[in-house]
């Protein structure tokens, strides 16, 4: 996948580009808003990562202009401003996700992967499968190797979120946003407790783990055959 990174902090841009390239993406860098808009309009990219505060033209204007021109490419906005309505402004301008600086690289990568796959994986499925784990969205039931597993409504939502992103890293803040629709940074391990309950429910009686902890980033659901 080809990414466009619009970031005026050259040192940070260099590092982010390096990390993204190591994860298998091609990365172009633009150092200001005008250049960024120019490159984005050329239309060779699959995703744009744009800093909010940029010289010449700020990130929100870049996104807005792109949307006005009918370009629907996913945009991840980076910002040093983290307040709730800054985030709302960012999403309203046409951004698809919003990340507050400084962030862990793992968080950025997880969100980039999620945005890239969103378009492809948006099929209307009524059944999700991961190895011998099956989730029936219509009947709201979960079975593993044919055995029914009882989950609470929230655990079901959590599992659905993870299964829709099989093989992707899902961070704690992504879970809080995606499952609870809450945008704050918990200072305690509340999400981990929910995850360990879910894990316990779907892995207790089975040998093979499905949910894996990714150190320093979050979780991943994958059937390691």
């Amino acid at each position: 996948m080809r990414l466009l990174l619009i970031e005026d902090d050259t040192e940070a841009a260099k590092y982010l580009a390096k990390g993204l390239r190591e994860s298998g993406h091609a990365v172009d860098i633009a150092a200001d808003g005008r250049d960024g808009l120019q490159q984005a309009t050329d239309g060779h990219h699959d995703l744009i990562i744009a800093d909010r505060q940029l010289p010449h033209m700020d990130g929100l204007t870049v996104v807005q202009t792109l949307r006005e021109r009918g370009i629907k490419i996913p945009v991840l906005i980076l910002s040093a401003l983290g307040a709730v309505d800054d985030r709302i402004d960012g999403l309203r301008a046409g951004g698809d996700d919003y990340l507050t600086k400084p962030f862990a690289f793992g968080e950025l990568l997880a969100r980039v992967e999620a945005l890239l796959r969103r378009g492809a994986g948006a099929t209307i499925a009524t059944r999700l499968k991961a190895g011998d784990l099956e989730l029936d969205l219509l009947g709201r039931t979960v079975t593993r190797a044919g055995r029914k597993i009882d989950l609470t409504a929230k655990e079901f939502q959590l599992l659905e979120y993870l299964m829709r992103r099989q093989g992707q890293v899902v961070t704690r803040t992504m879970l809080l946003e995606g499952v609870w629709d809450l945008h704050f940074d918990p200072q305690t391990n509340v999400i981990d407790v929910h995850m360990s309950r879910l894990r316990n429910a779907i892995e207790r009686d089975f040998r093979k783990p499905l949910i894996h902890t990714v150190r320093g980033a979050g979780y991943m659901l994958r059937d390691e055959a």
Partner: protein
Amino acid sequence: MKPERILRTSTARLATVYGTVVLLLVIVLQSLVFLLAREAPQREMQEVIATELRGFTEEFHAGGVERLAALLRSRTDRLGRIGAVYLLVNESRERLAGNLSGWPLGDPKLYSGKEVRFRFREAEPGSRSHPVWARVEELPGYYWLLVGTDISESERSLRRFGLATVWGVALIAALIALMGWWYSRLTARRVRDISATCDSIVHSDLSQRLHVGTRSDEFDRLSETVNNMLARLEQQAGMLRATFGSVAHDLRTPLYRLRVRLEEGLLRPEISRATRELVAPALDELDRVQRTLGTLLEIARAESGDAARAQEQVDLVALAREMHELYLPGMQERGLQLKLDLAETAPVAGQRQLLAQLLANLLENALKYVPSGGEVLLSVHADLSRAVLTVADNGPGIEAADRERAQQPFVRLQERADLQEGSGMGLSLVRAIVRLHRGEVELQDNSPGLRVVCVFPAWRS
């Protein structure tokens, strides 16, 4: 404004004091006039009667009782003094002359040389009784002469005068009370307008201004001064916000680079496991610094009222349920009970994310400070005018003296500093968020434990 509230104003007190003083002065003045009005004709009458008596006594000495009787008869027959009363009696109280039918008093000896008041009835039947003021004089040979005046007319006019005085005073009192009331109401209303506007400004809308009238009176001058002060405050708040934005950016960028370098360093295959273990915790510390900075920014923005622009209807009951669901497993894992006590609905105007952050801060505080086995109660109640959100625990609580301090940024109460890591800004963010929503927050003693009560105005569509 309610009458009893007007009576409590300082203007009403002042008006009452002034009114009372003025009323007392009026009463004193009127009483003096009344006394004078009564005294003057009385003295005149005494004078007239004394002169007449002198004249009659001289006639008696010159011509004896017959001459006096003749004189009296002529006085009563012809038109004498208006209302004049004469009577001459002998030892056995028989009338010798005069216009009284008989001696109206007791033993004449007792009244000799004295002034008397009595009532008499005229000889004709059906006539009214009249008050009379008179003097009695003893004449040689056991004769008694009574000279007096019918005072019914002067008493009547005096009564009328008294009545007029009482009514006049009552009217003045009523006028004073009415003016005092009107003035108090006027003043109270202007003060109330000013205080209502100030109230709304306190709740973070610094752009509002007081109304300045055209009269340039003391209220207009006060409003002008307050407006000048507000303009300055707003300017400073704006500067502070701008500074804050750039400081946050300036701080976040180096932090961002710091993280970038640390992460990059840790990724190098050549560094040893020991170095990795030494450096890795620095990333956690960095996380903490980042969170603190983020919280500080949130507080500054909430306090500045900048975030107030996006308001939606948020049901605190529904939000409390969601937060309960989110935090329950974490609480259980720490050996804590998390209970709910909810009304049916409690809508307020605000931002769901900020209110969720508020609840998260309160619940995470409980998670950090309440020892295992403790209990946390999350309750939401509402009536027509307000919604009350309470988080109560039976943990160590906060000393009464420390409660106000606990809401200031960066204060972590000392005895707990060793218990858990935390930015120490939880409660100040709570306060900032509550105030942004035009509410009030109070830390109370749950004996034992801490109870945080947040009161919000109810949603009005």
